């Protein structure tokens, strides 16, 4: 039985559909990432959950409790805002106490629980500090402590790391993950960064234009994207138009710029014969000197990433492909050939060509 359920939630603003029939279910203690580009409806979904927006249709359930029409005040959901929304006129302790006071916690019990919440985020002894005296990372932890102090049923995080400078993000991400695991609270967070979603989320829901494209573990999304959008949005990839010729001896035969490849990872059922789009991860391709059967082109750019380099190759037909290879395999301007890696490992996906 799932703990938190969203059932066919929809929300329009004027003429635009912000959230379109989104259904999701979370187990108790699970962490779900809502991932998508801007305008995908992820923030609206979170605000529907928090009660700041009322859905046009659909329901939000916590266990058997229908909270859809409940005011935010009554939901007992904790929320961490993108810019934290800490009350600037209250000090750290007063901020954390705010939600507890709503529950009529008073006196020593209040002090104790404020101290405990602050200790949880490693800010013991910061109660008297003013908000303006804190660094961005500390403010974020105060926001977390404030949201967690009243022991909410669900924790919601709106772009929790977007306000931190990049150097801090990775460490903070780790801290948040550990903290939420320790508290064991069911959590939904919004992000537009795939790395963040993969690192923090037990599962990731990919949204696009208000619709849920796919929900699954990061591994599933990467290896088995359900749509072309998910394949492209999650991880690096290039997308090129191909023609599916049909099953071969070892896999599926496709042709691209008059070259024919047999993709042994793909089952014949992956796509019907005819035009299709092929989405390829850089590591599913390899570079070698032009030869029969290779797609040929010119290296436009090389980006060194440490253990490997990413090469952007413009094919003779004008398509652009990203290929991963040894750091100094070829130089910009060189001619090269491209073949699928020997073990493409689920890095090549075919989707029916979209009309238009």
């Amino acid at each position: 039985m799932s703990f938190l359920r969203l059932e066919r939630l929809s929300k329009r603003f004027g003429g635009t559909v912000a959230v379109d029939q989104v259904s999701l279910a979370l187990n108790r203690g699970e962490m779900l990432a809502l991932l998508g580009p801007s305008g995908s409806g992820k923030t609206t979904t979170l605000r529907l959950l928090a009660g700041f927006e009322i859905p046009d249709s659909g329901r939000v359930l916590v266990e058997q409790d229908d909270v859809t029409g409940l005011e935010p005040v009554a939901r007992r959901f904790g929320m961490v805002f993108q810019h934290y929304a800490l009350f600037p006129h209250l000090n750290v302790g007063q901020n954390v106490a705010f939600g507890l006071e709503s529950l009529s916690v008073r006196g020593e019990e209040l002090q104790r629980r404020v101290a405990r919440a602050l200790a949880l985020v490693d800010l013991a002894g910061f109660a008297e500090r003013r908000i303006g005296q804190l660094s961005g990372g500390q403010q974020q932890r105060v926001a977390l402590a404030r949201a967690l102090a009243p022991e909410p049923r669900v924790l919601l995080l709106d772009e929790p790391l977007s306000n931190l400078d990049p150097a801090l993000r990775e460490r903070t991400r780790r801290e948040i993950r550990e903290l939420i695991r320790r508290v064991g609270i069911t959590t939904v967070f919004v992000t537009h960064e795939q790395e963040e979603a993969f690192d923090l989320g037990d599962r990731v829901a990919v949204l696009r234009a208000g619709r849920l494209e796919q929900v699954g573990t990061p591994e599933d999304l990467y290896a088995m994207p359900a749509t072309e959008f998910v394949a492209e949005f999650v991880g690096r990839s290039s997308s090129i138009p191909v023609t599916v010729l049909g099953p071969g001896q070892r896999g599926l035969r496709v042709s691209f710029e008059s070259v024919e490849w047999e993709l042994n990872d793909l089952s014949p059922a992956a796509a019907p014969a005819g035009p299709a789009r092929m989405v390829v991860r850089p590591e599913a391709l390899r570079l070698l000197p032009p030869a029969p059967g290779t797609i040929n082109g010119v290296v436009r750019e090389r980006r060194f990433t440490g253990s490997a380099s990413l090469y952007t190759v413009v094919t003779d037909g004008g398509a652009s492909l990203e290929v991963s290879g040894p750091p100094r395999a070829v130089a910009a301007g060189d001619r090269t050939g491209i073949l699928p890696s020997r073990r493409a490992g689920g890095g090549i996906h075919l989707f029916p060509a979209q009309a238009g």
Partner: protein
Amino acid sequence: MNSRTRSTIAAGLLLAFLAWLILYPLVLVLIEGFHGPNGWTLDFVRQFMGRKHEAQALWNSLWISVATVVLAAGIGVPLAFLFWRFDFPGRKVLSGLVALPAVLPPLVGVIAFLFLYGESGFTSLLVQWLFRLDEPPWRLQGAAAILLVHAYSMYVYFYLFTRAGLASLDAALFEAAASLGAGRWRTLRRVVLPLLYPALAGGALLTFMTALASFSAPYIFGGGFRVMPTQIVATRLNGDDQLAMIETASLTLLALLALWLLRGARVADNPAGGRKGVPPALVPIRSRAARAVVALLGWGLALVLLLPHLTLLLVSFVPVGTWTTEPLPPAYTWRNYLTLVQDPVRARPLLNSLWLATGATLVAVAIGLLAGILSIRQRVRAGGAIQSLLALPWAVPGTVFAIALATAFSVHAPLAGRVILVGTLWILPLAYLVRNLPLTSRAVAAGLRALDPSLDEAAASLGAGRWRTLRRVTLPLLRPALVAGASLAFVTAFGDFVTSIMLYTYDTRPISLEILSSLRQSDVGVAAAYGVVLMAVSAAVFAVGAEQGSPG
């Protein structure tokens, strides 16, 4: 009933109340102007068009206002640039003194000028005495006198707006312009002035509207020179009520025209709001001669600015009937102030003004707060209409509103929403309230817009209901805006002359009217003492407002 419905109902009630209080009286004025004993008529318009001095008064209002804008800009803008760009001895002190005219309520400024530059004022007596003249060397009268007072009291608007506009310019802009090869003049013309336009237009608009509505200076110094606000009062005293309505409509039209012409203007009570840039480094004035000249001019300016205040203070110690032709009063006494405190009849106007201004300010703040929360936070559909209605009294001269309220509330017709308030205690506080609403509501609106809405949402997600959120989060954070709006409103109502003269009763007579009557009885000492009290209270309220209003 959910919160959405409650907000909608509250907004509807507020809109209806504001329409009744602000719009309805103005509409009644229009109707009366076009409605005679035999139904609708253009007779009064024809009468208005037919009289030469009506057109003359309207024209006078227009050109005086335009000339005031030019003069005020001529003083205020260069001063703002001077303090923004250059460093010289006494810069800090001087830049504080520059705002001094703001603490003189209109009528008080006028009588200070009367004592200082009038035919029997210090300067003219001094000149007369120095050159052994039989006659006063000049008469402080007509357009020139009005313009002198206007320039003195209104250049502050231009100065403040320009300074705020300049403060929002980042030094990097000038470095960028310089690195792109623009010289000083090209930078001024192509970068500074275009960026400054909203601030300059805002200063121009505020100055024009204030000059157009100005009543005290033309009333005291005008003599035969009439502007529309004084003309309206005169017409009304003659009993030509309907003609006064047409005059009122013509003045309103002029105000709205100005509003339309300067629609790109930044309209804010707190022109300092908005982004602050890193100002470019001050340029020290090094040459010894230039420093001396600047210092001399600066302190000369400070003296000119301070003289009206000092004059008022000095005259307030003059016993009645002792000062006639000497350049300086021969005798001094504390009696004038003691009278204000001890004589119940003399103390009454002081108390009246205090409670009238306090009451009108508190109610105006409450309405402004409710309107701001409904229209900016809850985004009710009527929000735009509510804010426009609240801003309307700002665009309409005080004389016009006084006439409108006097018209609307002189008839007993409860079904038409009209009751008799004229001649009662209530008409004056109501008038002050109407005039205060734009000041408080705009300050609240600006304060609310600057608050992150997610603070309210954070409070809600932490289980705080509407009232607790208001009390614990919204109000404390709005305090600077509330204090700023309230102090401006209080000072305006406390020193009000233009609406008071048309609506006061004996029991509600405010300070300004008592100043006028003391002056008429040649009791200059008491008039000045009242003026000093007005000035001191205004200054104190502004000081508290600035102190409380600054964040942190």
